[in-house]
């Protein structure tokens, strides 16, 4: 079984201080995750 998430989030863009703003993934492809673990954040 599989769960697919499709969602809208702010696009990634570079801020004035060079920091990336917008959606950021916190996982790698193929990584094992547990329920409640972070996938990403804005």
């Amino acid at each position, binding site marked *: *079984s*599989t769960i697919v998430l499709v969602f809208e989030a702010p696009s990634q863009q570079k801020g004035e201080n060079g920091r990336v703003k917008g959606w950021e993934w916190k996982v790698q492809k193929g990584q094992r995750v547990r*329920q409640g673990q972070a*996938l990403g954040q804005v």
Partner: protein
Amino acid sequence: LGDALRNTKIQWYQIPVGLGIGFLGLVQFYKVTAREQEKQRDLEVGEPGSQPRGRPKVRPDGPWQVQVMSTLPLKAMSRLWGRFNELTIPYYLRVPGFKLYAFIFGVDLSEVGEDDLHVYPNLAAFFYRKLKPGSRPLHPDPHMLLSPSDGRVLQFGQIEGGDIEQVKGMTYSIDALLGRRTPTSSISNGSSGTSTEHAKKIHREASEEEEIIKSDAEFARVNGIPYTLPDLFTGSGRSKPVKDAATPSSQSTEAEVGAELALGERPWYDIISPDKTTSLYYAVVYLAPGDYHRFHSPTNWVVERRRHFAGELYSVSPYLQRTLPGLFTLNERVVLLGRWRWGFFSYIPVGATNVGSIVVNFDRELRTNSLTTDTEADRAADEAAARGEPYLGFAEASYEGASPVLGGHALRRGEEMGGFQLG
């Protein structure tokens, strides 16, 4: 008879070569004609006046393994598998059986909800086990999007041009995954459909509205849903709301509901922020057989609609995901559409051969991997064909009745939403 069999002389004659060739030619001609007729019938589906004949069978492309699999009655096999696993296991065989299963599939028995494994009467119950409280702590940062379940992150990324990359070079359309348009009312079968009666019901309940608003405002505050009630009413938040006309005010009229239905005809991606400050992202989490098979809400969000695609039940193993393009658009799945802090949000549990039954806790009417559902889907396809419309491939229900103010069913971060069951 015995005497006749023993004493009758048998004489063998050669069949003329021409007759054999003619016979083989006839067989081949029959096969080709039958194939052509089948193709012609597929083309005629949807044309006015054509003979209704259920959902057209999708024949996936792929290597020979996929071709062989496509000839198997996967849904029937899945149901049989489910029935088999519901058979009660003898008491003294349960613990060794579950321990063997845990050894093979890597289940951590120390976190299983019940200490005494005898409690699980069969494999189906063990498979749909709960975990001990606290064994899956949520990430402390409330702004994080959480993993909905245990599993492996197979793919994630940004959706560009409406396509999701399944593996390198294989993509499928997001429209095919989620469904493009809301079907006509004949297919809607939700607990509170977008019907005139629903609008009238909302109108009758208008006197109770103030009380509802109080409770929903309280809910929003508790769950940290970062929009205010006026945002929900007017859609003046960060992104365009799904349905402007869904506001259940005391002024709800049939015209509003009509407008809502009209909005339902829009492609789903029309809801994306028109100012292009947002993008669409996706993530695919694969649950292995030994994983905890209940799924949870990854964030605070509101589910507005459910679309049930009664498709096939191919395996969703990483191998097949690599080799069968558009696997998720072929399989039976439940598409939950709604919105979260940043706009559109959808959550799609996809079934597989061994776990065809998808349970959604807040939707008692949903029946997946069911013969009845298949029959209903065939009937809907027939009706669509009779009307001269294409079959959209899904049945839709609306959750607006769950909370008239929020416009759907609100879910807390980490809340259990449902799960996958064997068969």
